[in-house]
């Protein structure tokens, strides 16, 4: 009996492939920031990318384009396959001043061409998103998102009206990091990321089950990245009902030399803040 139980137990320990992204072993995009995080169709936004490499920040400027093709609701991916290639679904943009398409709520939001079509469903925070693609030479495709302010779909009129009047668009959070610039090799170092309480914003959310507006608070999640050493987790999250405004982790430092740390703070409505820290490991 015990042998069998043990046999079952070991099944959990096998076949594990590396599910970690915290150690940056090759050049890749770590985050794409939309400023502001949320905008109405027709508004202007700016995009920037945080690109890491084993040697530190990557200096190559990405090529930017808006993805104009929505994905089918049955697709688990966040982006339509039409935006993976180089077809007409991509529109090149100036990342410093790009306009959210005026039909964004039609393409990616709940607006439909007529009453005979199914409104698109929102994400778990009630949001809809315009994808933007960043092409960094030598890396995988990367997509960022601008949350778009759209009307509610299938909501009672008075609820939709109240939402339109009172909803406050998301703003990117503010990230403050605490990481030493000089550390000893092969040692444990505490890394801390914090944010002002106001960064975890409260927002109006349309509860589809009760068909009412409720006030929720953003959950926060910090992703940790380093060029070497080891990190115990990829990310640390704070739930929306948790008032905590800082999280920490322990970085086991690599051998002596230059190292980089990156911090990416995401709020649950798509807001992102990043920080980069150069570290000398002695």
């Amino acid at each position: 009996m015990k042998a069998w139980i043990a046999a079952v137990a070991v099944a959990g320990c096998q076949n594990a492939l590396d599910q970690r992204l915290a150690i940056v072993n090759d050049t890749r995009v770590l985050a794409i920031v939309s400023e502001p995080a949320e905008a109405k169709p027709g508004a202007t936004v700016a995009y920037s990318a945080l690109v890491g490499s084993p040697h530190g920040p990557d200096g190559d400027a990405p090529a930017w384009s808006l993805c104009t093709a929505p994905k089918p609701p049955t697709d688990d991916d966040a982006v339509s396959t039409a935006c993976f290639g180089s077809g007409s679904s991509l529109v090149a943009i100036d990342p410093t001043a790009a306009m959210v398409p005026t039909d964004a709520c039609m393409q990616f939001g709940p607006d439909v061409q007529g009453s005979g079509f199914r409104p698109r469903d929102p994400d778990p925070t009630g949001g809809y998103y315009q994808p933007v693609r960043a092409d960094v030479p030598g890396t995988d495709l990367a997509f960022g998102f601008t949350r778009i302010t759209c009307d509610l779909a299938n909501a009672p009129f008075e609820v939709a009206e109240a939402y339109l009047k009172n909803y406050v668009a998301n703003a990117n959070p503010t990230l403050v990091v605490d990481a030493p610039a000089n550390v000893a090799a092969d040692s444990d170092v505490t890394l801390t990321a914090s944010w002002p309480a106001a960064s975890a914003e409260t927002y109006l959310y349309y509860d589809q089950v009760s068909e009412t507006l409720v006030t929720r608070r953003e959950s926060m999640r910090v992703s940790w990245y380093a060029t070497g050493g080891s990190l115990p987790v990829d990310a640390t999250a704070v739930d929306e009902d948790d008032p905590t405004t800082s999280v920490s982790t322990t970085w086991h430092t690599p051998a002596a030399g230059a190292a980089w740390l990156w911090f990416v703070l995401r709020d649950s409505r798509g807001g992102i803040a990043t920080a980069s820290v150069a570290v000398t490991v002695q």
Partner: protein
Amino acid sequence: MSLGAPRRALAILALAASVARAETITGKLVDRATKQPVSGATILAGNELAASDENGAFVIELPPGKYVLVVSADWLKPAQLAVALVPGRDLAVTIEVDPTERAGEQIEVVGIAPTAIGETKVDAALARALPGGGGDAAKIVQSLPSVARPPAGSTDIVVWGAAPNESRVFVDGVPVPALYHVGGYRSAVGNDLIGDIHLTPAAFGVDRGRAIGGVIDIGLGDPRDAPEIRAQADVLDGSLEGRTTVGGVTIAAALRQSWLDQAVSLVEDPRQLAPNAPLPRWTDGQVVARAELAPRTVLTAWIIGSLDLLDRTLYSDDPATQTSENTDQKFARAQVTVRHDRDDGFDSGTLWFGRDDASDDYQFGTIPANVSDDAWVGGARAVQQRRLAAGTILTTGLDLDSEYASLARFGSLTVPAREGDIYIFGQPPGDDIAADSWNATTIDAAGHASLDARVGPLAITAGARLDGWLLTASRLTPRVGSTPGIGSQQIQYDADPRGSLQWKVSDELALRADAGEYHQAREAGDTSAVFGTPGLGLEDAWHVTTGAQWRLAPFAIEAAGYARWLDDLVARDLAVTPPLAKALTQDGIGTVYGVQVTARVLGWHGISGWLSYNLSSSRRKDAADQAWRYFDHDQTNGLIAVAGWVRGAWSVGGRVRLATGEPRTPVVGAFFDSANGRFEPIVGEHNGTRLPTYFATDARAERRFALTGAVKGAVYLEIQNLTNRANAEEIIYNADYTQHGYLTGLPLLAIAGVRIER
């Protein structure tokens, strides 16, 4: 008197195999001492074989002449009776037999030779003795010919390329929602009180409806055959069974409770277990009563119930990819059947009702997916079988089947996954969130009739089933505020012709073909105005099977070919913006083609079992403009060998299984999703690759012994995956999808248990 389990299976088998001749011998077997009927014995006359039914009765048709009726059964002393059939006169005989001394528990097997193409019937005693099921009778279904190799931990049953929801499970003719408990370790319909298991993979008769795949019939045994008390325990669970007689009513009851989760937690943190090794908790219970109301009129009633709970969390280094699952499933059924046997047939009536409650709450990072489905179900069945003339039998029946379901759903549109969804193991579902609550009614009132006629070497069955359907859904469009909903209601009819033709080439060889049309209603869960389409109707299928059956007791060989054409299948609308309240379509079509060769042996020197090879192709298309793809559970090659050997107090068994891996959709690239900080896959051809070939061997041994007085005991050991082969169950990927590997099933696994009974 009851000598062993009733052998209705063999009686049916033998009757089906018999060929109409000029005269009829009707007979009855009785115990010489008690004068009680003796069931389940075989009667050989000339080249014709029959079996005695529950009342000891048998029928044999032969040309005029002199014959010797040879009665045999493991538990009877051989008996013979010489008779002479005179032209124009039927003959009635009574044969008295004497039982042999029974030495300990015997495993008696009947009826594993097929009647319809691909059909398999297994006695529960044999099923329990074979490896693969841990002593659970209904687990044998997963080892039957025609049944695809199930993924580890799966409760799905795929027969001849049909999706799990296209086949239906019945207990004594009453539909049940699941054959297995969550996790697939045990059957949900009990174990101790099961009498036999009957699979018809395609082209089943007119008495069954609402399925376009196959039919699995679990027959509960006669409670008189149950031991007075029996207790069984192994690492998975424990069960207790008892029997009593109150007046003229025999009642047997069984209860089973799992403790696998507690057992594992003694030595290992369940959180460390793999996603393919869930640790559910299950309970099931059955009560069966039987009373003889009048001579040849029997009332049987039973209640069965099943409870399943599963809570698990798959922890992750990133909370955004941590998943949890909470499953709570219950069902109960109760039925009453009265059957009256006549010399020329029988009348049977059944009333049944039940309740299904199921809720599944998933959380994939921040993405929820909650589904609940609570339903009242009920129905009635009436069957009359009558011999119109020698070799001609008319069977007519009525079949009412109804369901009223209250459903609620909140969360991702793509959970639960449907057949045909592109599924990449480990990828979170789409984060599009919706909600709905609705009701749906499904009522199917059917009448059916079939005529069996035997003319010389030909046996023809022609029948039809006429179904009238009432399908309703409470909302035609999504709910908005307190706006009253306009419901969807439709009445549909279908007339399904079904029939077979058998040519008995010789006493051993028969050629047979079956064909029929089948319909099933959309599922209640698909009628949401948000997640589905309220106006969905009936799915349609045509089945054709053909083959040759060679039978020389105790051996049988069958070569079968089969085809299934599926139409109006419910499938997702893949449009970027589907029409309102039409997230699902009925544009799906499918085809299944295959051949299967099966050799069976029944009780040859104590050996029973089968060797079966199946070659098949099952493909589907979700819309006219889509490309054909392989069915999600398609297995091109399937080989299964199962054998059990009983000798004295020992029984041993083995199982070998080889199967082509199931299709999967390959990952050809990845992109970084900045919103979630993770990579997502870019997929290739839908179901364009496969898991590696599966191979496993299992073995089982049981030793029975006498304790004190009438108390008997048994110990058993079952070893699954004897070669400790690492069979791939899923393709897994690293975080950025640049590497892939396989999630493998359970390694060598030993289950030891003990059983005590009186």
